[in-house]
């Protein structure tokens, strides 16, 4: 009988299946995209010259004893990425627009013709107005970045991604002066209490979610705090259904409970935070060194020594309290250098008074949460290793900075950072030095890399001559502020200024109707003051009052899908100014359809590179070239170099050898390719990539001796150091071979000061604008009525489950796993009231636009809430208007502060960012 049965799987039908699961070759692959920087290592299977499938490599070895491994990291999008190579929206040849912009009529042209025209448009723009008239947009697809090589040479500003795609946690920066300290995801396992707050990891962290479920099985408790019963709530122990935009009140009420019950960690608070620092009761400003002693620093702050009964300087060089027991309560009198007496009190005393507005009963009313729920959770936070699992949702609220500051206060009071299983998370990258520093080396070879890094470090040491208390974090940040050293992307600017003057936002941001009532003046007056006072001098803040953009270069991004404020604004205000719009991409996006040229980029298995270097798992992951690019598509680096060659060529033909940029720098148009490729030595993608890996080993980012071959053997290599670009140093902990990573340990364990104005975690911001707005301490404010005060619904959003931004939204395999069309979630009672059926087409309307979507009806959605997950291509909607077309795209004026300690611009850091959450809309039936 056994034989008979076995024979059944010997049939031809069985061989068809067996044959389907075979391959000619297998390669390591990944996706150089910004998902959450995953950098999942995959095996890519190739048959007959085509990618047939991929499967997670699953080669992670456990890092720390007693903690689950990271296998098999990778999601459904990665599991069918190969399909995108051959999808009908793939671009395989250079295309030139022949119809109207947006019409979708293109003809094939040669690379030479396309790049010649683009180079001419760039040179025209430079001759006409200067290189600032070319806009290069920093988009999250890192794999596409090399296509923007030209920006490094022409002095063309690249817009800062923090605002461009609005991924910033301003509250973390205000508190710690750091860019997103995060732990590795295996550290999540160690939390005793995880608050999933402003995040939906079931959608956005598919590859890592298991650590949350496993932490629960390990005895941890999971609580979700969200307006809707979110998909991430289903596996929680408790779900707190909070009213939209009231999270700061919730956090502050917990802070009050903790302080009132005496549950706060006194030593942690005294040492790590500004709560003991003295504030003058007459001015509301910190007591400062130059007020206390002639010639002392303005940025010297004081606390009250309870033993000596006097105001003494809080040390700038360490967090250690050194025998002082700083007062956290009381009012004291001290004498200033001019002999006057002033009354002072610690920030903590002000905080206690401030929190009187946030009793659990009052906050319960605001948040629509039972006060007992607040009390119970507060006590848990105070007594357990607590982690706030957060994404970038809070920062997208207009007052998200306040929410985040309130959450940071909760963690600070309870000592919940700088040890395993605690802290916050968001998104972080690191260690991109090898590629970024390439063009700064004097020549090829690792000796040159060694020379460069020695030089850089020497320059940083120079900074400490002036102030020996500067920490490694501080010198790196000061260097970044001064030289734009980060990223190797040339000049990077906060885009708010070009938006204001050239994108059409001026009228909107100055419209008093529905705007933030804490603005005492017009937006124009604030921006004028900020610019006139020189707070943004490095950032072309004035330039765009005059310079009109002429060329827009979008590589790997999709501006018309992404821009908060909508397509109408862009197409009416910006597009007519543009002589040349270029989309460099492997797929046809809505922005591509409105472009003059589309340049076909290689897909992720057709080029060589690494995935976004991710702090979350600490591995450098190889994306190998498994197949040749389709058609005439080219790797982004090859495109970048060819654009430089075209610029050189066209400049030579018009006799243009050099030009001056706005800052007076003379920039050459000769030998661009030679300079970019270290005299031709780095002309080939493979040579260059190998060199960047070898250099990374020199820079201490990867183990000594790592090469491309090492990566081809192993697929990934664990990082050994943070590097000096990519914000790694914001992690402020040392990478250990056999431990999970938790950030800020330099501060909590080694007592190294923070890079904030007061050198401690700073909850009190005494800048005049913050005082004017009543935001010197974390506070709750209702979201402004953007979209229309009288509209009935509030729109929230978030990353979707099915796509990295819009990249996979049109992947037919993925589309068949959801409704396959744009939709909006509505509460069942709301839908019934409006007479809307499940699946019916509805119209969402705000003051700035409208969008047509299918209704998805669910009791998980909060009454009065509509959820539109973002990422749908505009061209997936009838009339092509999507969720972003409902968003006015306001920026908060306090983001313009630029003269206050850590509130100063450097790349990927403090700057005005747009809000897009809690937009007011109406929902209408479509007849």
């Amino acid at each position, binding site marked *: 009988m056994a034989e008979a049965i076995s024979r059944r799987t010997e049939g031809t039908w069985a061989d068809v299946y067996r044959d389907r699961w075979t391959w000619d070759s*297998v390669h390591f692959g990944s996706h150089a995209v910004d998902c959450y920087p995953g950098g999942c290592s995959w095996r890519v299977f190739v048959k007959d010259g085509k990618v047939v499938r991929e499967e997670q490599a699953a080669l992670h070895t456990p890092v720390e004893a007693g903690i689950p491994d990271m296998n098999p990291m990778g*999601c459904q999008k990665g599991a069918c990425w190969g399909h995108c190579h051959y999808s*009908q929206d793939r671009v395989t040849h250079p295309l030139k627009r022949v119809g109207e912009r947006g019409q*979708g009529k293109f003809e094939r042209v040669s690379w030479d013709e396309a790049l010649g025209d683009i180079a001419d448009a760039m040179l025209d723009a430079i001759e006409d107005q200067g290189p600032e008239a070319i806009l290069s947009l920093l988009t999250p697809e890192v794999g596409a970045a090399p296509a923007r090589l030209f920006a490094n040479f022409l002095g063309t500003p690249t817009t800062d991604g923090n605002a461009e795609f609005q991924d910033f946690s301003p509250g973390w920066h205000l508190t710690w002066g750091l860019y997103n300290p995060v732990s590795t995801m295996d550290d999540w396992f160690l939390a005793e209490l995880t608050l999933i707050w402003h995040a939906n990891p079931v959608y956005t962290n598919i590859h890592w*979610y298991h650590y949350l*479920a496993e932490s629960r099985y390990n005895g941890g408790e999971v609580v979700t705090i969200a307006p809707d019963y979110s998909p991430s709530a*289903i596996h929680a122990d408790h779900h707190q259904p909070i009213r939209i935009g009231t999270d700061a009140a919730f956090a502050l009420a917990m802070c009050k409970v903790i302080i009132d019950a005496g549950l706060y960690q006194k030593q942690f608070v005294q040492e790590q935070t500004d709560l003991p620092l003295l504030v003058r009761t007459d001015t509301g400003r910190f007591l400062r060194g130059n007020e206390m002693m002639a010639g002392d620093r303005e940025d010297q702050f004081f606390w009250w020594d309870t033993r000596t009964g006097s105001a003494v300087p809080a040390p700038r060089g360490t967090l250690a309290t050194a025998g002082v027991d700083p007062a956290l309560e009381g009012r004291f009198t001290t004498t200033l250098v001019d002999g006057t007496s002033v009354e002072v009190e610690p920030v903590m005393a002000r905080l206690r008074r401030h929190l009187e507005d946030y009793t659990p009963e009052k906050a319960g009313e605001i948040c629509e949460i039972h006060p007992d729920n607040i009390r119970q959770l507060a006590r848990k936070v105070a007594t357990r290793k607590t982690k706030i699992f957060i994404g970038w949702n809070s920062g997208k609220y207009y007052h998200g900075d306040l929410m985040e500051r309130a959450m940071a206060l909760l963690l600070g009071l309870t000592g919940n950072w700088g040890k395993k299983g605690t802290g916050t998370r968001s998104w972080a990258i690191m260690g991109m030095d090898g590629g970024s520093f390439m063009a700064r080396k004097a020549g090829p070879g690792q000796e040159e890399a060694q020379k460069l890094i020695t030089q850089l470090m020497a320059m940083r040491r120079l900074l400490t001559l002036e102030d020996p208390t500067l920490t490694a974090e501080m010198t790196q940040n000061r260097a970044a502020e001064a030289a734009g050293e980060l990223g190797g992307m040339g000049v990077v600017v906060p885009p708010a200024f070009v938006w204001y003057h050239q994108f059409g936002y001026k009228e909107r941001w100055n419209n008093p109707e529905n705007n933030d009532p804490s603005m005492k003046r017009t937006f124009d007056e604030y921006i004028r003051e900020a610019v006139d006072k020189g707070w943004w001098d490095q950032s072309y803040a004035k330039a765009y009052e005059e310079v009109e953009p002429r060329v827009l270069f979008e590589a790997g991004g999709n501006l018309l899908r992404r821009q908060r404020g909508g397509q109408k604004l862009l197409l009416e205000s910006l597009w007519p100014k543009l002589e040349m719009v270029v989309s460099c991409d492997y797929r046809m996006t809505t922005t591509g359809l409105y472009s003059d040229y589309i340049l076909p980029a290689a897909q992720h298995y057709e080029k060589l590179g690494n995935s976004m270097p991710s702090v979350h798992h600490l591995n450098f992951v190889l994306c190998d070239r498994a197949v040749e690019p389709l058609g005439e598509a080219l790797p982004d680096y090859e495109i970048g170099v060819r654009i430089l060659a075209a610029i050189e060529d066209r400049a030579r033909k018009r006799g243009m050898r050099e030009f001056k940029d706005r800052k007076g720098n003379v920039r050459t148009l000769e030998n661009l390719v030679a300079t970019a490729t270290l005299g031709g030595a780095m002309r080939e993608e493979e040579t260059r990539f190998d060199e960047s890996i070898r250099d990374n080993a020199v820079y201490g980012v990867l183990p000594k001796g790592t090469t491309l071959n090492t990566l081809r053997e192993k697929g990934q290599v664990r990082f050994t150091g943070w590097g000096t670009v990519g914000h790694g140093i914001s992690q402020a902990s040392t990478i250990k071979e056999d431990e999970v990573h938790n950030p800020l340990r330099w501060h909590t364990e080694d007592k190294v000061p923070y890079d904030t104005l007061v050198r401690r975690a700073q909850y009190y911001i005494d800048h005049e604008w913050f005082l004017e707005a009543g935001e010197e301490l974390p506070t709750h404010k209702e979201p402004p009525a953007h979209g229309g005060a009288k509209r009935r619904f509030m729109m929230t959003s978030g990353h979707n489950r099915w796509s990295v931004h819009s990249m996979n939204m049109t992947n037919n395999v993925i589309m068949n796993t959801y409704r396959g069309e744009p939709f909006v979630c509505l509460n069942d009672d709301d839908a019934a009231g409006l007479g809307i059926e499940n699946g019916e087409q509805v119209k969402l309307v705000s003051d700035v636009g409208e969008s047509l979507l299918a209704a998805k009806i*669910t009791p998980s959605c909060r009454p009065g809430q509509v959820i539109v997950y973002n990422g749908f291509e505009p061209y997936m909607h009838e009339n092509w208007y999507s969720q972003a077309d409902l968003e006015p795209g306001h920026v908060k004026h306090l983001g313009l502060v630029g003269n206050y300690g850590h509130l100063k611009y450097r790349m990927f850091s403090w700057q005005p960012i747009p809000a897009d959450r809690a937009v007011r809309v109406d929902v209408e039936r479509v007849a």
Partner: protein
Amino acid sequence: MATLIRSNRQLAWVFDLNKCIGCQTCSVACRVLWNEGEEGAEQQWWMSVNTMPGRGTPKDWESMGGGYDANGVLQSGQVPTPEQFGGGWDYNYDEVLRGGHGRSVHLQKTAGSKTWGMNWDEDEGAGEFPNAYFFYAPRMCNHCSEPACLEACPTGALFKREEDGLVLRDEDTCQGNQHCAGACPYKKIYFNEARGVSQHCIGCFPRIEQGVAPACVRQCPGRAAFVGYLDDDDGAVSKLVKKWKVALPLHPEMGTKPNVYYVPPLAPAPLREDGSFDEGGDRIPPSYLEGLFGTEVHGALDVLRTELDRKRRGRESEVMDTLILYRWKDALGHLDRDPAEIVWE
């Protein structure tokens, strides 16, 4: 009519519904591997994940009948229609992207169902805000020990492998009369009109032959899926199903003795009318879970709660440690070979 062969060993799957996040990586892995791009297989998702409660795929499958009645009599059940399976979508990419029509056209479905899809009611669930509830359930062929499909098949195309208990179909013999699809109470049998044969999950037998776990298990990023022989007492599957009885078959009353097991879902504490937590209350109605997994579900949930509590008190728990899955390979049982090591001659 085929005679049922008892297998010597039985391969079984366990899905932990407290770890499943509905991401469909299992579904996509399966589809890309076995039938993406195949003519006639446009609607086929041998593995699919649905939000429960929900109408699922095919639409309303739970009321379509099949299986065996209490007396062991085969029920013919309903054969799902292509419209009930839904999906199968293709789109007018060319018209939108290259047609020159601008905004007058947008990306729309040009093939397949207009009203349903394999995951149409994703995240809708049931209940009333704020006490809404739902969870995700991956579904595939149950490779049943009493496969109704096999008994219903008039051509003998279906058979149960002796060595591992997979229920497979000899597609060379299958004549596509779809009696199997009517008899299957789980409605996981599809019909390929282009080829005139029925098709269903093949248990990744070509992978199993090479010592590699099925794609749905090996590619589950939620680490919610386990595979292994039921008689392998040291394996995770056996521990969860037999020793601790925390993994249960879906709709056991259908009488087919399925070999896919589920760790039933816990849920957050519900809120009382005044907004405070009802700690002992049930967000998911127990009667609903009983309808899915039988009365055993209460015992399974009790074990889960007890063991969770042990861990919270710092005690050891074999069940929790098994579900935590410290070493991912433990989910793969004996099928832990890395497929990339295989070199085809």
